[in-house]
């Protein structure tokens, strides 16, 4: 009975909102986009990510607050809520490692119904998640990510890449992050929006010490219902995961909404 209530409460949290933990700000679902849409503070985004590991279930719900201080510079903060439930252990819920980030458009070439953009980003993660008690909600490490996000987006197709280098502390390995995504709209583009987008993404992370590469393939679907609401869902399946057997991921399921408040 407790387990049922536990799962239902997780599902309810899922449905409350959705924040993109990997900083995707619009399409795609798991990969970042070079279009800066802080919209002067009204673009609050959140989604729930359900991670099923060999010996644990993890639910992550980040709240992202982006703000365009100029059309080409965006500041933001991430507050992740984390629920971790290892096998044979009580679940722990709380705030994970918070982060702040800044993005700047480095190059922009617009055409009729299309755009090519390159954005530089820096993200600083702070070890605010409780890492003393088990299960830990944070990585207990300061992490600084330097990245470049590129996108060629038309009304017919979207091609995205998001690569970066993450510098860590406290014994955690530096890692190289790489993400690629293709987005395909099923319906004719119109405004106000009514659109269904299909995405196929590759999301990878290469650790330097010890060397280990983790790569996921991530199909997803996104339904834009109107001007300000988007519902999306995706699953990440491991193609390659060079970690200890007990740390392997079975799958990651994401479900959520993005709402532009006003």
């Amino acid at each position: 009975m407790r387990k049922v209530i536990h799962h239902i409460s997780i599902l309810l949290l899922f449905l409350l909102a959705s924040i993109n933990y990997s900083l995707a700000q619009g399409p795609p679902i798991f990969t970042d986009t070079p279009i800066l849409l802080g919209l002067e503070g009204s673009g609050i985004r959140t989604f729930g990510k359900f991670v099923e590991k060999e010996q644990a279930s993890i639910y992550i719900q980040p709240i992202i607050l982006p703000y365009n201080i100029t059309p080409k510079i965006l500041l933001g903060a991430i507050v992740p809520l984390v629920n971790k439930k290892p096998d044979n252990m009580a679940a722990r819920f709380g705030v994970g490692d918070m982060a702040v980030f800044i993005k700047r458009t480095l190059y922009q070439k617009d055409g009729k119904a299309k755009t090519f953009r390159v954005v530089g980003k820096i993200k600083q993660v702070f070890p605010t998640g409780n890492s003393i008690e088990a299960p830990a909600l944070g990585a207990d490490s300061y992490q600084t990510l330097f990245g470049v996000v590129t996108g060629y987006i038309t009304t017919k197709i979207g091609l995205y890449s998001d690569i970066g280098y993450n510098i860590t502390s406290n014994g955690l390995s530096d890692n190289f992050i790489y993400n690629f995504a293709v987005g395909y709209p099923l319906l004719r583009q119109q405004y106000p929006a009514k659109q269904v987008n299909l995405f196929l993404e590759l999301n990878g992370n290469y650790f330097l010490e010890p060397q280990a590469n983790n790569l996921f393939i991530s199909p997803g679907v996104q339904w834009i219902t109107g001007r300000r609401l988007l519902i999306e869902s995706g699953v990440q399946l491991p193609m390659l995961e060079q970690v200890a057997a007990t740390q392997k991921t079975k799958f990651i399921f994401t479900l959520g909404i993005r709402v532009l408040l006003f």
Partner: protein
Amino acid sequence: MMKKIFFSVLIITLIISLQNSSSAIAQNKADITYIRIRVDGLSCPFCAYGLEKKLKKVDGAANLHIELEEGIVTLEVPKDKKPTAESLKKVVTDAGFTPREIKFSDIPFKEKDEDNK
């Protein structure tokens, strides 16, 4: 006799009121400036929302319409509140896009395009 007079008055009243309303419509249309802006970079619906938000803040802006595939935005403003092309370019740039051609017209652009065919 009374019936004849009554219907005559009714018809005359109808004719006068029709003339007044059509001249009122003509008068209203004459007070409006129609604006068409070609915008590059409009490649996603959420992008368009940001542009719409900014354009709606233009003084007197109404009937705003965005065609994503064509990259065209149309809107109407009262003649006495007609914005400059430069101010409209700034609005589009501030929204994160590239303004191309801006045109002003005294008649709706759909009518103008049909006349030019």
